[in-house]
């Protein structure tokens, strides 16, 4: 989405703060895959990959890649002690069965009710669903990492999604290059504004009403 690596890293580093020791976490492709770089090394997290790995470790060094050990995006990974391999039915049984504490996904649009659209732009881009629907519907906490506006400069956070939905009422937290926004019962709660933006900038670039909890905003 034209965001520089610094901005993407900042979003990933912010998302990393949501991960607590002991969690089982699935990361989507793109910016979410940067998140492990910002976890304290002693944080014990089990990273789940829907192609059938629980306990993914850091990326291998160049020349050390194993062609038979990749993440869901097809990139080489390593495993930590205690890791396991399993087939795709088991990988998704874990997801649907409620064993995933968190998923961090990319997004095209998010509505104020937490609806997520991230699988198709009709007539333009048709990547497909992959595991996104199951992750969005069944992970206990869903974080969306995305640019605040699309490439035309239009808001991606809206009252209602315009693109076909991935899942309804699934998103808990939105982290963008401009802000951190929580999806609450009462609506969207602006929790943090990213530098160099102001609250006014965020409001102008958001297509839904933003609430501010007193003392909740930095």
């Amino acid at each position, binding site marked *: 989405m034209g965001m520089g690596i610094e901005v993407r890293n900042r979003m990933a580093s912010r998302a990393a703060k949501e991960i607590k020791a002991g969690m089982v976490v699935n990361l989507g492709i793109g910016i979410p895959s940067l998140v492990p770089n910002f976890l304290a090394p002693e944080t014990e997290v089990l990273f789940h990959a829907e192609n059938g790995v629980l306990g993914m470790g850091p990326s291998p060094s160049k020349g050390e890649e194993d062609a*038979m050990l*990749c*993440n869901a995006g097809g990139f080489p990974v390593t495993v930590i002690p205690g890791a396991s391999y399993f087939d*795709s*039915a088991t*990988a998704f049984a874990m997801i649907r069965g409620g064993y995933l504490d968190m998923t961090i996904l990319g997004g095209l649009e998010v509505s104020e009710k937490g609806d997520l659209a991230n699988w198709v732009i009709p007539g333009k881009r048709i990547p*497909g*669903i992959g*595991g996104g629907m199951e992750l969005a519907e069944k992970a206990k906490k869903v974080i969306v990492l995305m640019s605040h506006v699309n490439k035309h400069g239009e808001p991606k956070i809206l009252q209602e999604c315009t693109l076909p939905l*991935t899942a309804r009422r699934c998103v808990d937290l939105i982290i963008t290059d401009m802000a951190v926004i929580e999806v609450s019962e009462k609506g969207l709660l602006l929790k943090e504004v990213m530098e160099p933006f102001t609250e006014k900038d965020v409001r102008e670039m958001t297509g839904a009403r933003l609430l501010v909890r007193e003392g909740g905003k930095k």
Partner: protein
Amino acid sequence: MEMQSKVTTLENALSFINDGCVLMFGGFGGVGNPPTLIKGILQKGTKDLTLIGNDAGFPEIGIGKIVSAERVSKLITTHIGSNPIAGKLMVEGKMEVEFCPQGILAERIRAGGAGLGGVLSDIGMGSMIEVGKQKVEMGGKTYLIESALQADVAIVHAKKADYFGNLIYDKSARNTNPLVATAGRVTIVEAEEIVAPGMLDPESIITPGIYVDMIVESEGVNWKWAWE
């Protein structure tokens, strides 16, 4: 008891894969697609295939090569984003694509191999996935009926096979392979290594040999990977 060997030639295996057949493949993002069988299908010129599998691979990797060569009339899959040629063929109307949530595709294949008619799923309610599907009430909840999938031929990649077809896989290259192995009327395995029965520990076997009809030796995985 002497077990009859299922090891055969690539040529014999390919004689079961013909124009218009429903071909199910193991693999995820190219990893675990059987490269020697795919190369053989390409060289044989087989066309009008209905393909069932996780994704459309990459244009020059794994099953993606068969898609790119326009040998597929219908693709039942979860994801084509890594293969732009698949998207182009879909938009041009040259290939029909049916999308299914990833874990539900795995379950439909599992059901196909397990003698079930389908599975009940609440994934994709309120999305395009529910269009045209029957719904049922169960325990106070609404579910979609997702039909079971079977294929004329299933092609699978394994790390090791014994002559009888007992299989073990290689790390994340396992993915959909054990499921796909069960759902073919004919299941053909491409194995990196073929050993005598008894050489594999029965505790370690992931796919019991009864699911396997033929085994061919792999020419090896020399694929260009997405990250290379």
